[in-house]
């Protein structure tokens, strides 16, 4: 569905100010009398705290206060669950051990706060941290995911019988039956490592308490202003209206910033009130690595039951999921893995089961992709293994099993992160796969290019993979659209922005409904002072859920404008049109009234209010989808591997994506590009490594490799498809995470293909050249 603005690649309205630096980020904010916070963090992953001596630190000039758990009394308790437990899933079990704001008696991961210093400057605060002496009794750390569940393992939470945090088993059809029907059952084990959601801007918070107005203002680059406001108010015994959360411009979210009731927001809100001074804490990069949530390790044991001709009859996937020291985000990540394992293919029998495991590592919460890519990785790897064992091509086996274009709506029988059965609303997977093969010139590469280059001794390979992305889940978002007396429009929403172009795309939606210039639509996001309802920025749901709410609110305003104008212009509504900032009679262009004048008249003077009407050219609307809209696509990749150094060069990538109606195709391209880059990080570079004592050994960008611009494929071709979602009026599906999802799968397959003659097969992601070298050596030895 295209309009004057919707479906057009207009330039981002927010960019001129961002590019010229004429904007405010959190760390730009300085308040009179502002103090600074720093955390004393645990050096141990697992230890009992015997005593903490803060006396020296308190004496340092410029230190206002040093606080440990003891100083906060009853205020310190585990935070609330950020998402509900999986009670909707039959037989699911779980325990909740949510985040402690500051360690009491025991530390459970290296980097967990044991004290907080408030000082006149961050420098002094850090000096004071050096003067805090903690006497620990070190305990054996729980690091290995599988050993953690063995009897006799040390316990992260000693009040629990084991480190098991939960268990989910879901089945459609019968795996037992599949094994009976199959000609061949292929078994593999896979390891998925842990990555950071390293945004360019780290986390941070500024809290100001106005003791006269009894108002708290929080500036924070959070992905969820509403949750932060509500949880803060509840904790401090305030009305929600006494807490205002404002997100300044924010340099990326990628998942970790969705969390609330973290040590910083719990402790700093309290101390800002207690000390009656504004306090700033801005995370440094080392803290971000150590103590901001990251994502997963998983170990998968997988079996694929196939017929000789490659037809899938069943899949069984059993996996362990590392949730770290606490599990405030419950099972979102492993449930995403579970639902995305078989989404693209016809798998009549599917048994999927996982255990969530506590370890002495950082808490796991979603990072872009949020577990989806590992379901996809497992399935794509199994198809590659099956193709190899059956002597088929990777293309043939996928073609044979892809869900057909007439399969929708497709009921998966598997309950997902939104606790309803996963339903694929729409799509056309065979076409996106075919289009990818064409863009990557698969046949030509395999039949002509590859043999020629191989004859010259070059190790070139190709991979193709399919993916889906469950997006735009509930519960709901809302928006208010208001036309001002100046004829310009303001959109406010509780949704938050971290760079996704909402200021442009939401404006495009409204401009089309109200017939105004898109530049006359101002979008305000993430400020509870303007809009107090919503869930948050996650699950690629901005444009799908908040965008749809915006669309519905704009439609209501349009109706109001038409109704009022009809009366004033003395013409039936059907004959009116909204364009160029006016409402006019379609056939008589001289007969019109500007939206601004209408807005003024919509605020009735004494004696003119009609009973039963509402004032203002203003409306609020909410949208909550029954279930998420599923985007999908496919990717092809050609690589060259240096046969000696195992350096991998990404020669060409073709990426075909279907997100229904793209409100702004250029913005969609940007999301795909960024996602691909993050996927390349995942596949090749990024890895949070903990040693056997639970110490993070990759706590800086010197050790944690992050994809650079120079790591992108030499050639990148995007292809778009549009199968509109029937779930919302604009036909939109989310796109925020799509790019990242299939890259580890396609990368692994392409490198394997390049090194085909060695017989190497990879069972993990993050394939550094050294790892590839080791795999090849092992394959040669085998």
């Amino acid at each position, binding site marked *: 569905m295209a309009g004057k603005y919707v479906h057009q690649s207009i330039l981002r309205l927010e960019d001129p100010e961002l590019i010229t630096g004429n904007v405010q980020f959190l760390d730009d904010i300085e308040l009179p009398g502002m103090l600074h916070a720093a955390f004393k963090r645990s050096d141990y992953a697992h230890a009992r705290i015997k005593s903490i001596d803060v006396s020296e630190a308190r004496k340092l000039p410029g230190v206002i206060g040093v606080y440990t758990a003891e100083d906060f009394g009853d205020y310190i308790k585990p935070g609330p669950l950020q998402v509900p437990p999986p009670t909707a899933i039959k037989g699911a079990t779980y325990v909740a051990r949510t985040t402690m704001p500051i360690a009491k008696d025991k530390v459970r991961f290296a980097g967990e706060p044991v004290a907080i210093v408030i000082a006149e400057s961050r420098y002094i605060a850090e000096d004071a941290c050096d003067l805090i002496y903690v006497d620990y009794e070190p305990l054996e750390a729980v690091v290995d995911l599988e050993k953690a569940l063995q009897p006799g393992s040390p316990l992260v939470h000693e009040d629990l019988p084991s480190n098991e945090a939960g268990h989910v088993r879901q089945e459609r059809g019968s795996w037992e039956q599949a094994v009976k029907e199959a000609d061949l059952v292929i078994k593999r084990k896979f390891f998925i490592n842990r990555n950071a959601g390293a945004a360019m801007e780290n986390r941070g918070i500024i809290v100001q308490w106005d003791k006269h107005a009894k108002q708290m203002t929080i500036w924070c680059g959070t992905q969820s202003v509403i949750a932060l406001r509500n949880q803060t108010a509840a904790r401090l015994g305030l009305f929600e209206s006494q807490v205002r959360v404002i997100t300044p411009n924010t340099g990326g979210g990628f998942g970790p910033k969705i969390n609330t009731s973290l040590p910083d927001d719990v402790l700093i809100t309290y101390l800002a009130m207690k000390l009656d001074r504004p306090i700033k804490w801005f995370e440094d990069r080392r803290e971000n690595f150590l103590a901001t949530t990251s994502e997963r390790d998983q170990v998968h044991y997988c079996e694929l039951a196939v017929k000789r001709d490659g037809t899938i009859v069943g899949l069984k996937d059993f996996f362990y999921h590392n949730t770290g020291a606490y599990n405030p985000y419950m099972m979102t990540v492993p449930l995403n893995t579970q639902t995305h394992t078989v989404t693209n293919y016809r798998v009549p029998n599917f048994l999927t089961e996982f255990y969530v495991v506590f370890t002495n590592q950082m808490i796991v919460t979603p990072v872009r992709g949020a577990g989806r890519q590992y379901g996809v990785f497992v399935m794509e790897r199994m198809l590659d293994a099956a193709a190899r064992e059956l002597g088929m091509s990777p293309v043939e086996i996928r073609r044979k099993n892809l869900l057909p274009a007439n399969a929708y709506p497709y009921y998966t029988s598997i309950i997902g992160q939104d606790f309803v059965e996963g339903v694929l609303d729409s799509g056309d997977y065979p076409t996106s796969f075919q289009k990818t093969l064409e863009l990557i010139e698969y046949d030509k590469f395999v039949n002509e290019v590859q043999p020629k280059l191989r004859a010259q001794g070059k190790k070139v390979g190709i991979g193709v993979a399919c993916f889906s992305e469950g997006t735009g889940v509930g519960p709901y978002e809302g928006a208010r659209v208001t036309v001002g007396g100046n004829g310009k429009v303001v959109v406010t929403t509780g949704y938050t922005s971290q760079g996704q172009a909402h200021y442009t795309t939401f404006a495009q939606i409204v401009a089309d409904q109200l017939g105004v210039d898109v530049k006359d639509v101002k979008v305000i996001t993430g400020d509870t002072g303007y809009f107090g309802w919503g869930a948050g920025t996650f699950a690629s749901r901005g444009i799908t859920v908040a965008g749809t709410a915006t669309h519905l609110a704009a439609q209501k305003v349009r109706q109001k404008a038409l109704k009022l104008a009809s009366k004033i212009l003395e013409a039936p509504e059907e004959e009116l049109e909204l364009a160029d900032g006016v409402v006019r009679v379609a056939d008589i262009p001289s007969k019109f009234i500007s939206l601004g004048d209408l807005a003024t008249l919509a605020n009735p003077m004494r004696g003119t209010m009609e009973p039963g009407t509402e004032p203002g050219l203003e409306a609020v609307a909410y949208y909550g989808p029954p279930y998420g809209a599923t985007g999908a696509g496919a990717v092809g990749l050609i690589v060259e591997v240096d046969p000696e*150094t195992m350096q991998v060069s990404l020669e060409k990538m073709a990426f075909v994506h279907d997100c229904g109606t793209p409100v702004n195709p250029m913005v969609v391209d940007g999301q795909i590009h960024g996602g691909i880059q993050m996927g390349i990080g995942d596949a090749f570079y990024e890895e949070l490594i903990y040693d056997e004592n639970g110490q993070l050994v990759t706590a800086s960008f010197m050790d944690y490799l992050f994809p650079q611009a120079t*790591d992108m494929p030499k050639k990148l071709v995007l292809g778009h498809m549009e199968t509109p979602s029937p779930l919302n009026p604009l036909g939109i599906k989310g796109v925020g995470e799509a790019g990242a999802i299939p890259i580890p799968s396609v990368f692994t397959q392409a490198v394997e293909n390049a090194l085909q003659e060695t017989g190497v097969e990879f069972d993990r992601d993050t394939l550094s*050249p*050294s790892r590839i*070298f080791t795999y090849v050596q092992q394959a040669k030895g085998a």
Partner: protein
Amino acid sequence: MKPAPFEYYAPTSVEEALATLQTLGYDGKVLAGGQSLIPAMNFRMARPAALVDLNKVNELFYIKPTSDGGLAIGTMTRDSVVEKDPLVAERFPIVPYVVKHIAHPQIRNRGTFGGAIAHADPAAQIPALSVALNARFLVRKQGGERWVNAEDFFMGPFMTVLEPEEMLAEVVLPPMAKGSGASYQQVSRQKGGYAQAAVISVVVVDENKRCKDARVVLFSVGETPILSQTAPKILVGNVPTAEAIAEVAEKISKEEVDPGTDIHGTAEYRRHLVKVLVRRGLTEAFERAK
């Protein structure tokens, strides 16, 4: 990530800088471009009591030709200046090529030629380059100076022969011999990243293509830049063959380097890289030698 408290001195002449270093003794630390020292201080891994900042000492910023065809480079000359200097490119084409591989442009705009040498990071390019080019270093202190050969300068990771009151003032590169050829080979995980293994090869051949000299310097695979003893033994006096080069590569990788296993690569992989890179580097250097 804020540094621990420190004193700060900003001399404007070499004399003043040397006097300050003399007074401070072990408490003093020279600040050049700060691209390594400042992050280390921010991590509080380095806690110097006092910094002596050379950025205002104008007389330390220069590149001068020497009469014998070599170059003298002031210790504070920025990497990016060395990288783009036409005289450097003319007399030592290998230098800008190697310098380009140091981190990223922003870092090269601040980082200095002498600072990298004095810092002696075993993974840094310039220390190895200075050994490969047989550089000499002018080391000054209040009331005295001495010359040290690059080969004798590096004692261990981040350790040199410099005494606390001394300062590296100038790097002299002797001219490339007639018939020289050079090559730089490195493998790093990313563009601008630390090398997992790297080698600078400088060879000299006579009119009959016989090898007269072969300086092969490995770095990032041991505690200091490693000048191969094997390479000249096998190559000098002979016309280099592919077999001889392969033999050198094999021997160096087995006997002369000591890479460790780290999170980015196993020792076995890095040893393998040394073999591959030495072979590629020597082959390229001999092709270029004229």
